[in-house]
């Protein structure tokens, strides 16, 4: 067991303001004992990567409902890797068509959670996949 709590950045990129999902997830992860930083709305991939580095997080949860995932997600992954955050998991939640799922995973997204996912499943995924560190 890691002595350190799992740290997660919950981020809302793009122009969309529908933050119900992001806020519910942030609260559920906190209730599960994780440390959660919520970026607020309309963050560019650059802002998200910078916040991830500064907050030294284990995972970035990205909420997208607008259909802009194919533009925004690969860029977020790429910027994180460029900044040396190779082990930081990128999770995506929102409305993503089935056919886009394999491509996003290939581009480095760890998992995509579609509507109807239980917050418990997201907690379990993080607990199982975040690499322990001190």
């Amino acid at each position, binding site marked *: 067991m890691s002595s350190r709590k799992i740290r997660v950045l919950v981020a809302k990129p*793009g*122009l*969309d*303001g*529908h*933050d*119900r999902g992001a*806020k*519910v997830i942030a*609260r*559920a992860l906190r209730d599960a004992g994780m440390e959660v930083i919520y970026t*607020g*709305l*309309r963050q*560019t991939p650059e802002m998200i990567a910078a916040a991830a580095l500064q907050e030294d997080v284990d995972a970035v949860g990205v909420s997208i409902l*607008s*259909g*802009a995932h*194919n*533009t*925004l997600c690969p860029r977020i992954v790429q910027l994180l890797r460029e900044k040396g955050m190779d082990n930081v998991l990128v999770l995506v939640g929102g*409305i993503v*068509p*089935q056919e886009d799922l394999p491509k996003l995973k290939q581009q480095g997204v760890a998992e995509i959670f*579609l*509507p*109807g996912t*239980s*917050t*418990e499943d997201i907690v379990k995924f993080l607990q199982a996949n975040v690499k322990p560190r001190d």
Partner: protein
Amino acid sequence: MSEIKESSPAEIERERWEEETLKPALNKHPERKKSFQSVSLDEVERLYTPSDTADLDFARDISFPGEFPYTRGIHPTGYRGKLWTMRQFAGFSTPEETNARFKYLLEQGQTGLSVAYDLPTLMGYDADSPLSEGEVGKCGVAVSSLADMEVLFDGIPLEQVTVSQTINAPASVLLAMYLVVAEKQGARWDKISGTLQNDILKEYIAQKEWIYPIKPAMKLVIDTFAFCTEHVPRYNPVSVSGYHIREAGATAAQELAFTLRDGIEYVAWGVEAGLDVDRFVPRMSFFFNAHNDFFEEIAKYRAARRIWAREMKRRFGSSYERTLQLRFHTQTAGVSLTVQQPLNNIVRVAIQALAGVLGGTNSLHTDAYDEALALPTDRAALIALRTQQIIAEETGVANTVDPLGGSYFLESLTEKMEQEALEYFRKIDAMGGMVSAIEKGFPQREIQDSAYQYQKAVERREQVIVGVNKYTMTDEPSEVPILVIDESVRTHQVERLEQTRTRRDSGAVANALDKLRVAARKNENTMPATIDAVRAYATLGEICSALRDVYGVYEEPAF
């Protein structure tokens, strides 16, 4: 009420029933659950009887349709005179594509149009802004200048078709574009009708598509009220919206309370700006959600009309019937639709729409079954429209006015909704009104809490979602086809924008934008200068940017 109250005959009868009939039945067959809750997680009783409505007075609280307090509707003949307006919200991709969808919907018997704009348009950015990348034409149609608006309404006579526009932070600019297109068609402003959503308060509360700080944003809303009252008298310059508040997680009572309190706030600001209540309030319209809990929703609509009539009388001293009558649009709950087993959504939508109709909605949008996946395909949009036509013409529910009026359950629920809303009004009034309450984060926190409680109830399976937490299928039947918008839309839109910028008189644009800045700084009505800027083909991004120079931008406080 007296302290010692003798049991009424109805209560005595009820006690007898409980003793003689209910108890033995419960002993034999216990109920399925300990408690039964609405989708808003409110307790629902086993049975409602005359004792639950004993405090209601027919003439005072229920009355006749077309009469104060309008609980049973604003039209004396309900839908026997005129059915509700079937107004399907549509917009995607380029103005050309949306124009074609509009014409298709009108050919299929739709009676009004409703425009969905894409996110860059909603946020006041042009298609070629770096912030628009990946978002152009995705959630709605892309409109960056008058040139796009001309294409959007090409061949649609604006004097005959009423158009509703879902646009908020930059609403005054899109209204200006609409008016100029109408003018170019030869339509007279005093003849055209339609609705501008223009409800900025619910943006800070729920949907969060804002540009400017709250107070200047409110000033822009009031500018449109003043302008329309004078020049476009048949146009509804605001649609005070609970829809998004509900979608963000509010309960039915919170949706009702925050929406009506927003409405009161607009009226108060209008009065403060010197407008005459009975000239502008009759042109305010409302917009509610139709969620899954059938009776709760019907009660919400009936309570909304009653509260509005009473508050307009009490707070603003109006006795003009058109000020007192709340008119509203309804949309079925997008948030209730599931990705899993998507055809089930057709059934959900039908039941939600029926609640809207039984609640006396004045216009209705039914969601397409594929909405949890993407924007609707033609086929899905058509089924949604047919759903309304079936309710209107096959079920018989439109044959009589307020068919559920007098139901012990419904009347008692309507009363409960009203009381819950009034309790919120007291809290918000004590904070100094809705603008202050929003600045304190009050409605936002209430909604977040409700959203979280609901999610937990779903995860505990106390709230059932068929296909998601019950009756799930690992092997789902065939996928439904979805509408895909690719990046070629942006290229197309950017090209038109570049042509527009080349062809226009750039000196005239700069001049018009300067005049707009001056009007904003001097606190004059910004509508005339906005219309002039639009006529000169200044873009949406340029106009919003000019106003940002004066007003600044909104930063959401953390809570």
